[in-house]
């Protein structure tokens, strides 16, 4: 008896030691995110809703009464309305192209992925060089004879033009992000489904519409969700292209923090951005929800 006890004791002790192991492994991450993610987030509500004397909504009042607030809100929404739908279809097209197993697919893949690692600031700088009066777009358009003289694309008083210019840069930069998620989803769809539809005479667009899109819905949901959340943070690309011609919510948060040194109003802006992101996420989740019984996985 004693020998058996002698043998099992270290074993159970060992087993008990490993039971705690996963918690020790995730502990650093939990602590770090608690300190540098959760706590700051709580703090920003405090900053936005308190001033020196206690609870107050002064910061929100200051924010809303600033004419730049409405302007920033309008431009942010307009930009999202232009960018996200267009880039969704483009991203879907790019993902389908990559999934079509073309020759030189590896090269196309590399090129399509490039924008993923490019910052919105860098994208803004390049596209401002393209749209500026003495820029590349005018050079090309004059070269092929469409224009006789340089056209002014970035007129600060013409908001529509500014939105289009920023949207061009944003679509160029951030479509890849959606494409990656959609492409990963496409790869999870068995090829037989599309082939079966083809046998029954479905053309390409009908296959996309009736076979691929329904099966891709979970990925579409994630892609739209994340893209919308990031779209509310758009910032440097707007400053780089429009200068002071247009402003967005994140740019205002930056301005209040860095230029006006008022962290309360900056925090109020960040709370608004958070609220809008979560609202957008909720809308996507509700609109694109998949009933449980129709889920394939």
């Amino acid at each position, binding site marked *: 008896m004693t020998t058996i006890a002698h043998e099992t004791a270290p074993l159970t002790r060992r087993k008990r030691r490993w039971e705690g192991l996963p918690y020790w492994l995730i502990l650093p991450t939990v602590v770090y995110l608690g300190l540098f993610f959760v706590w700051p987030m709580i703090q920003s509500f405090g900053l936005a809703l308190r001033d020196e004397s206690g609870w107050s909504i002064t910061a929100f009042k200051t924010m809303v009464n600033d004419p730049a607030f409405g302007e920033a809100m309008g431009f942010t929404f307009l930009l999202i309305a232009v960018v996200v739908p267009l880039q969704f279809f483009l991203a879907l097209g790019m993902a389908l*192209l990559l999934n079509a197993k073309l020759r030189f697919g590896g090269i196309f893949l590399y090129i399509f992925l490039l924008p993923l690692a490019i910052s919105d600031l860098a994208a803004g700088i390049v596209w401002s060089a393209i749209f500026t009066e003495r820029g590349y777009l005018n050079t090309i358009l004059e070269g092929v004879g469409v224009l006789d003289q340089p056209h002014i694309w970035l007129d600060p008083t013409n908001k529509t033009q500014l939105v289009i210019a920023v949207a061009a840069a944003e679509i160029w930069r951030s479509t890849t992000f959606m494409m990656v998620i959609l492409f990963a989803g496409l790869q999870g769809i068995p090829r037989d489904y599309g082939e079966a539809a083809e046998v029954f005479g479905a053309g390409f667009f009908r296959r996309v519409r009736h076979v691929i899109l329904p099966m891709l819905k979970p990925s579409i949901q994630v892609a739209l969700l994340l893209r919308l959340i990031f779209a509310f943070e758009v910032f440097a690309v707007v400053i780089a292209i429009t200068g002071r011609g247009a402003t967005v919510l994140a740019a205002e948060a930056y301005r209040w923090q860095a230029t006006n040194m008022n962290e309360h109003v900056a925090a109020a802006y960040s709370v608004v951005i958070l609220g809008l992101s979560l609202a957008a996420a909720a809308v996507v989740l509700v609109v694109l929800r998949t009933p449980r019984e129709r889920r394939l996985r």
Partner: protein
Amino acid sequence: MALRRLRIGRALAYVAAVVISLWILAPLYFITVAAFSTFDAVYEYPKQLAPQNVSTDTIRVFLDSEGITESLRRSMYVAAIAMVACLLIGTPAGYALARFKFRGANPFQLALVSTRAFPLIIIAVPLAVTYLRFGIDDTIYGVALAHVAFTLPLTVLITASVFAGISYELEEAAMTLGCGRFSAFRRVALPLALPGVAASTIFIFVTSWNEVFAAAILTLTNRTLPAQMLAALDFSPLPYRLAGGFFLMAPALVVIFFIRKYLLTTWGSAAR
């Protein structure tokens, strides 16, 4: 008939793929040509579409501008600190998610995924206030700490899926052959996971290198390259901006080449 339609479809697919490729490459090409031409050529109109006056003048003037070499160095330090810290903190958690069934694993994973729903802006502003109190405002460490907070959740999720892709039986085999738990991890799982972990490291590097908002808010004089570029946008000449833009973009070309495989396999699903 069907075959011909298929062939036309294929041809159209190639045309579309080439057009999209050109659209993505053209701006990158323009900025590269501009960065490697003479200072005067950058100002010229019509713009040179083909490289004619190839020179390193513009790049050199940019690098000699006040604060640029320092900000480049700072950007590298910040990215390096973020990379090391993220791996040290995140890899164990990723391993735990991949290898152990433990209570709280699902909520933990869900929490990591849902961090992405929160805009990073909301963290940056209060951190600026906190840093001021602890005296790490305007330092590269402060920026690096923020960048770790941004990249840690995804690092954990990616490393988890990397480890999940490596059979646990290999580690068990090593343990029956006398390895301890840790040395089985170090000698078997880690070497196999290295390419995937390296890819996620590169992702941390790029995120940190590109990050503008927090870097601009958390520093005043010790700016990283993006923060420096943002602050100088208003008054800097075109060649300066284009050369700066080139330096911001250049890592992308290299980085994507190395991680393109992982972007689509492990990460596409890790993002869900």
